[in-house]
């Protein structure tokens, strides 16, 4: 059963210039369905349209055409649906003067569903910090945190309200090799133990092939191909499949 449906989605950016605006394609006629319980990877080069499609899904930008349905509803307009989504942006930052516990407390209070007893709230914060491996740093100000720790706290805020769907934009970006492995293990744990559907974008083929059940290759602002795990495990490598999809677009001079 699809929990996310991109329906013929198009986004054209209007970039302000000195005297006139310039149009730049974000994503073009993008249609895709993501099923409940899946880990789905969006794979593409920089500027191919991965982030644009995620931002459209989250209602951060408005589509030029088409629509996105999340749990059967329009995410941009429905607060009830929004409360079922967790999101980790590509660039994560938190006020350096606050501790992870304080930050999670604030996010919890914004969510209307989090109107619960204080001891329950604190217990959930403790549990969430344990899941992301930040138990020992819960009372420390985030100013001294490493990139990996900030990323983990980003995940914590995204899963704290127990979402059904987790949307992650380049989650391994800027992490060291150990951080990448830990992030991968965390994804698998969230998907298998908490049954969270995960949609993430990446330009790292190695990462995408290790965790995804299915992958969409985006190039030139268009969806080029959808692949299942069986295709890259039993046939050609994901790298080969990706290059086969992307190179003709690059050769044609399209913006990828």
């Amino acid at each position, binding site marked *: 059963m699809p929990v996310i449906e991109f329906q013929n989605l198009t986004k054209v950016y209007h970039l302000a210039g000195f005297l006139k605006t310039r149009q730049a394609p974000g994503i073009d006629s993008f249609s895709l369905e993501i099923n409940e319980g899946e880990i789905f990877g969006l794979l593409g080069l920089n500027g191919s349209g991965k*982030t*644009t499609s995620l*931002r459209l899904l*989250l*209602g*951060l*930008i*408005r589509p030029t055409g088409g629509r996105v349905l999340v749990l059967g509803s329009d995410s941009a307009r429905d*607060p*009830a649906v*929004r*409360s079922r*989504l967790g*999101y*980790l*942006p*590509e*660039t*994560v*930052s*938190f*006020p350096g*003067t*606050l501790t992870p516990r*304080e930050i999670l407390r*604030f*996010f919890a*209070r*914004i*969510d*209307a569903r989090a109107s619960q007893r204080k001891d329950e709230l604190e217990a959930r914060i403790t549990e969430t910090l344990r899941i992301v491996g930040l138990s020992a740093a819960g009372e420390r100000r985030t100013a001294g945190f490493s990139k990996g720790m900030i990323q983990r706290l*980003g995940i914590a*805020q*995204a899963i704290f309200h127990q979402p059904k769907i987790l*949307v992650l934009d380049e989650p391994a970006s800027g992490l060291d090799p150990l951080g990448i492995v830990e992030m991968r293990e965390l994804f698998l744990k969230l998907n298998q133990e908490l049954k969270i559907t995960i949609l993430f974008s990446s330009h790292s083929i190695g990462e995408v092939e290790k965790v995804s059940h299915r992958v969409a290759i985006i190039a030139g602002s268009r969806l080029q191909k959808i692949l299942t795990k069986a295709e890259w495990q039993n046939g050609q490598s994901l790298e080969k499949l990706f290059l086969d999809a992307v190179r003709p677009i690059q050769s044609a001079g399209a913006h990828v």
Partner: protein
Amino acid sequence: MFNRILVIAQLTLLEQVRDKIVNLIFLFAGVVVYFGVVLTQLAQGFEERFFRDTALAMVELFGLVLLLGSAYRVVRQDVRKGSSVEMFFVRPLRRWEYLAGRFAGLSTLLLVGMAVMGGVQLGIITFKGFSWHWLFAVSFAELYLKLIIVLALAFLLATITTSQASYLASTLLIYASGHVTQLMKLLIARQDSTDTVSLILLKPLTYLLPDFSFFGTANRWEGIAAGAVSFSIGGLGLTLLYTVIYAGALVVFSSYLFSRAEISPT
């Protein structure tokens, strides 16, 4: 709705209070007030007046620095960085609620900052043996309301300007213009009614610009204290009403623009 606005306001207050920049501004204000006290010794014969004028000017300066920096950061910089603000906007939080919460948080921060400054001033008045006058409280209240208008202006300009330089320049320009709005109105009234430049360009401008002559009790201090100039609570009530309407309109308009704006990818 009010709960979410309150959460954002509390977050803003906590962030800013713990921020070292705010601590530095408090320190700066303390040092400047201290120097004001030392310099009053040079102003023999009118020490109290010198202290009062210097201290009130320093409080206004402190408030301006505090709100100009903070408003830009919470409205523009956090959005540009695509940081925690995106994580807020994918929650059941409307953008106008976010902006209203930020405004409430910074208004409270300003109140806290001015209370600290007022406390310092009261301490110095007691220490120096100066006489306390109720006009201090009125001047502080008016200064706070004036800075609330500047804060609302800063929110609007942070929403529509494209760089920090243009934001600062335009906010300070309007802040300065607000001090001569009344004078502009008087000058326009003296012109020939066929002077189209005055009528078409300047007259509407005088109604759009803030009018800081509403906040001028400190300038009439001597006259009020001597009983030569009248002071009414009703006048203070009008000033409050003006602030609520003017600042409220700016915040509503900023919220409208902020809600329509697309958050650019980093």
